[in-house]
C-alpha cells in the first residue's frame, strides 16, 4: 500500500490535473550515434525516452524522470545485465552565462557554460519559454535549453520540434522512492559490480590464457574514470 500511495500521490495526480504539456523532441548524439529523444514536460515532472518508446514505456525500459518538486531525477543505469535504480539531485550545474546567442526553432537563445561530472558543456537556452528545464539532467537556466553539447563532442542534444500546448500525457511510471538508491551509493555499487565482473571474467574460463581484455564504458558522466576514460580497465589473464 505504501508503494501505491507513493505512486498515486506523487506521480499520477499531477499528471492528470493538467491537460496541456510541453513536448520537445531532441536529437541526441551520443558517441557519434544519433537517437531521437522525446521529452514531455508537465508543471512538476518531465520524462525523457526514446521517441518510439515514449508512449508505451514500462519501468523495465530505459527512462529518465525528473520530479521538479522534489528536485530529484529517477532513472535506470546498467552495467552488463545488472540494473541500478538511481535517484539524483537535479540542476546541480553551476552555470556561467556567455555572450553568444543563436536562434533555434525561431527562439532567441543565449548561451551558458558549466562543468558537470567530468565534462564541460555549452548550452543555448531561450528565456522566451519560461521553464528552467532541459533534456536529461540538464536544467537550472532561466529558460528552456534547446541545445547543449559537451566541448569534447561526446554528447550533443539539439531540439528538433517543440509542441508548446500538447495534449500528450506522461506515461504512467510507478516510482517507489525507497527502491531508488542515491547517487553516491549507486557509484559505490557500480564500482563494486565492475570489480566483481573483472574477477569473474578472470576465473570463469571465457578468457583464454594470455588474453588481455580491456573493458571500457562510454558514459556522459565520468564517475569511474578508470573505466570510463583512457584505455579502460585491463583484465589480464
Amino acid at each position, binding site marked *: 500500500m505504501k508503494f501505491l500511495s507513493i505512486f498515486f500521490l506523487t506521480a499520477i495526480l499531477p499528471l492528470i490535473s493538467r491537460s496541456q504539456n510541453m513536448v520537445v523532441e531532441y536529437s541526441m548524439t551520443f558517441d557519434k550515434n544519433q*537517437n531521437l529523444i522525446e521529452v514531455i514536460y508537465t508543471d512538476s515532472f518531465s520524462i525523457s525516452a526514446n521517441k518510439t518508446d515514449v508512449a508505451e514505456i514500462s519501468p523495465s525500459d530505459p527512462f529518465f524522470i525528473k520530479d521538479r518538486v522534489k528536485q530529484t531525477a529517477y532513472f535506470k543505469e546498467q552495467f*552488463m545485465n545488472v540494473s541500478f535504480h538511481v535517484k539524483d539531485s537535479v540542476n546541480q550545474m553551476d552555470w556561467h552565462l556567455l555572450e553568444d546567442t543563436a536562434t533555434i526553432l525561431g527562439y532567441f537563445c*543565449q548561451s551558458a557554460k558549466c562543468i558537470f561530472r567530468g565534462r564541460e558543456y555549452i548550452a543555448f537556452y531561450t528565456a522566451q519559454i519560461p521553464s528552467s528545464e532541459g533534456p536529461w539532467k540538464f536544467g537550472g537556466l532561466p*529558460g528552456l535549453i534547446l541545445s547543449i553539447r559537451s566541448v569534447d563532442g561526446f554528447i550533443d542534444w539539439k531540439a528538433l*520540434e517543440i*509542441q*508548446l*500546448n500538447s495534449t500528450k500525457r506522461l506515461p504512467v511510471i510507478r516510482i517507489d522512492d525507497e527502491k531508488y538508491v542515491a547517487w553516491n551509493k549507486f557509484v559505490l555499487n557500480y564500482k563494486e559490480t565492475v570489480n566483481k565482473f573483472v*574477477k569473474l571474467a578472470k576465473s570463469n574460463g571465457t578468457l583464454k590464457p594470455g588474453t588481455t581484455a580491456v573493458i571500457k*564504458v562510454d558514459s556522459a558522466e565520468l564517475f569511474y574514470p578508470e573505466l570510463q576514460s583512457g584505455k579502460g580497465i585491463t583484465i589480464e589473464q
Partner: protein
Amino acid sequence: MKLAGSIILVLLQIQLFCQTISGKIENVNGEKIQFANVITKDSAGFATVKEFTIARNGFYSIKLSKTYKTLVLEVSANKYQTEVFIVDSLSPLKNYVHNFFLTKDTVIKLQDVVITTKARPYQIKSDTTSYDVSAYKDGTERKIQEIIRKLPGIELNEKTGEIKYKGKPVETVKLDGDDLFASNYSIGTKNINVDMVEQVQAIENYSDNPLLKGIESGDKVALNLTLKKKKNDYSGSVDIGTGVLGPTAAVNAGTDLLGISKTYKSFATISYNNIGINNTPFDYFSYNPNAEQLKEADFLAKKYIADTYFDTEVDGQRSNINRSFFSSYNAAFKMGQRLSLKTNLFYLNDNIRSEQSNVVRNNFNGRSFITSDQYTIVKKPLQYRGDADAKYNLSKRSLLEYSVRYKVETINTLNDLVQNSSLNLNTRLNTSDNYFRQLLTYTNKLSDKMATQFVIRHIFNDLPQDYGFLPAVHEPYTFNSNNQASRFQKRSLNAEAIFLGNTAKGKYTVTFGTKSEKINFRSALSGGINNGEVPVSGFNNDFYYLQKTIYANSSYKLQFHRLRLTPSINLAYLYQNLRDKSIHHVEDAVNFLPEPSLAISYRLTNSSGLLLTTAYRQKPCSEENFVSNPVYVSSRMIRSNDVSLQIQRSKTASLFYFIHNLYEQFQLNVGAVYSENKGNYFANLFVQPTNTKAVYFFLPELTRFLSLNFMVEKHLPFLQSTLRLRNDYSLQRYKNRINNSSLRNNTAQSLSNELFFKTAFDARINFENTFRHRILYSKAEAGLPFSNHAVKNNFQIIAKPLKGILFLISTDYFLPDTKKPEPKYFFLDASLFFQPKNKIYDLRLTAKNITNNKNFLQFDTTDFSTITFQTNLLPAHFVVSISRNF
C-alpha cells in the same frame, strides 16, 4: 508596463558589499508560484540576460555579481504573464526586497503549436551492443574468432564455427556494415586477423533486408566487425609456421588480404596446414553441418551412400591427419546509388588419412558374435564454388535482390580394409555434388509498419555416387568385383508471398506459398566378370517422386509488459506421388496438415526468466526411405525400404528457466525438452558376421525423446575462483527388429557431468581444471543392458613469468572405460608465446602430443552391441610460428 499588485521597497541593514534583491513571487490570489525564472537585463526589451536565478516555492533571491545603477528585473513562469520591474538608482551598499504578483496568461494559445526542423537520419543504438572492449586484445590467438568467443553473451561452436548471441544463432558477421559472407561467416571469423578489427558489435532485431527493419518479427541477431581505419586501402597478415611432425615436416601457413575503398570491400584468404586445423566453413573430417547447410537441408539431395566421417572423443586437432588447402575471395561492390554486387569464391582441397579399427560385440536373441574391421582410409574432398548476389533499389521503398550459387564438390574415399581379420577388401567411393541455386526476392515497404515480400527460389541438386568393391562383396564366387551406383537428383521450386506488419501490441507475419519438389533416384549394382560388368538383378532402383505443397502460415508476436506470446499456425495441403519403375509401384497421397505452435516467455526479473514452447508438426517422410530395392550403403550395410507415403507427426514441448545474475556472480540454467514422434521408419536388422541387411519399414508407432539440462556457475570470492557444474541427460525410446524378431522396445540413455574450476589469482601463475564424466546406457526390452562409463580430465597451468611472455602447459587424461584400468591416455601439450613491445609480429612455439600417443580407443553402445573403436592420432609435433601484419 503592467504591474499587478503592490510594490514594496524596503531598505535593509547593510550586510554585504554586493547587491541582493529578493522577494515573493505569488499569483494575484496570494498563492505561491512553484517555479519561476528571474533574470536581470540592462534594459527592457533588450534580450541578453545578464544574471539569473530560479525561484522555487514562491520566493526568489538574486545576489548580483556586479554593481548596477539601473537594472531590469524580469520574472517569468509557465502559464503566467511575464512581469518586469525597473530599479533605478541602485545603491551598491543596499539589499532590496521586491515582491511580484503574476497574473494568469489569458492569451488563448493554439492547440499543438508545432515548430520543427528537419530531422537527420538516425540509427537506434538500443539494438546494438558495442563491445567497447576496444581491444579484447589476444596474446595467444591470431584470428577474430578467438575474441568473439570471449564476449559476454556470445557462444561459439568450435566444431562448426557457428556463433550464437544470447542463445540465438547469428545470421551473419558483417564487415563494417557490409554482409560479405552471409551464412558462411566463419570464413571471416576463422581467418580475419585480430589486429584488423577495432570493435565487435552485436546487433539485435537484425534484418538482412534494410526495408524490413523494425517490421520483421524474426528476433534475428548478427555481428558486425568495425575495422581499424588504415591509410592504405589494403591490409593483411602473413602467418608462417613450420616444425617437426613425426618423420615429416609440420606446416601451418596462411595469408589474408583485406581491401577497402568507398565502392569496394574484399577479403581474400589462402591457407595450408597438415596439423589438423580446419580454416574453412566446411567440415569434411567429422560431420558437423554449418549454419548454411542446416538452413538449406530441406532443399539438398540426399547422400544415400554415406561418406566417411571420423567422429572421435578426442579433439579433432589430435586426430585429423590432414593436408588442407583452402582459398577464398569475397568481394562487395557498390555500383552507384542503387546497385550493389557481391561475389564469394571458394576453393578447397584436402587429404585426410586415418587408420581405424572397429570391433563390435553383438548380443541378441540369445546369440552372440564379434565382428571386426580394420580400415586404412584416404579421403580427398575437393570443392569449387561461386556465389553472386545483386541488389537493386527500385525506389526508396522497394528492393529487388537476385542471388545465384554454383557448387561442384567431389569426395573420393579410398578404403583398404580387413574384415573379421580375414577378408581383405578395397573400396572406392566417389561422390559428386553439383548444386545450383537461384533466389529472387522483391520487397516493398508499404508504410513504416507494413511490408510485403515476394520470393521465388529454384534449386537443382545432382548427386551421383559410385562405390566400388574389390574383391566382390556380393556373390563373391561369381564376381571379381562389385560396383554400386546411386544417384539422387532433386529439383525444387518455391514461391512465397509474405506480409509483415508491426502494430502497437506486436508484430505479425502472414505467408502464402507453394512448393514443388521433383526427385529422381536411380541405383544399380553390377558385378565384374572377365573385364566386363554384369548388372545384378533385384538391386536396381528407379523412382520418381513428386511433392507439391500449398501452404499458409501466420504468426503473431504479442508483448504484454513482461509476457511475450507467440502463437502461430501453419496450414498445408500436401500432394505426394511416387512412381517406382523398378518394382512397378505407383502411390498417391493427399493430406491436409495443420500445425499449431505457441511460445510463451515471461521475464521474472531483469536477470531471470521462463520460456515455454509447444508445437505440433506433421511432415512427409524423407525420400531416402522410398528406395525399395537393396543398395550397398557401406562396406557392411545393405539397405532397403518398405515404402510408404504416410505422415510423421510430432509433438514437442520445452521449458527453460534461467538466472543470469552478474551482481551476485551467479548463473543458473535449467531446461527440459520432450518430444514424441508418431509414425517412423523403423529398422529390421539382419545382423550377420559379414554384413548387416537393414530393411526400413513404416509403423505408426511412437518414438519418444527427453532431454534435461542443468548448469550452475558461481564465482567464489574467498577462493578468487569460479566453479561451474553442468549436467546433460537424454533418454530415447525407440523400436526395431533384429533378425526378424518381434518389435523390440529399446532405450538409449546418456548422462554427462562436467565440473569446471578456474583460479584468478593476482599472481604470475593460475590454474584451470575441467573434469568430465559420461555414461552411455542402451537396452532392449528383454535383452542385456550395454553401458559405458568414461572419464576425461583437463588440467592447465598458465604462467606469465615476464610481460609479453606466456607459458601454457595443458594435460588431458582419458579413461575410456572406468571398469577397466586400461586403456588410459595421458596427453601433454605446451606453448610459449612472445610478443615484443612494438607488436608488429608475434612468435610462438607449440608442442602437441609430447607423450606421443599413437592411437586412441573409445567405446560406444547400441541396444544389441558394444563397439570398441580405435583411431590413430597426429604424432608428437613441434611448430615454430611467426605472424606479421602489414
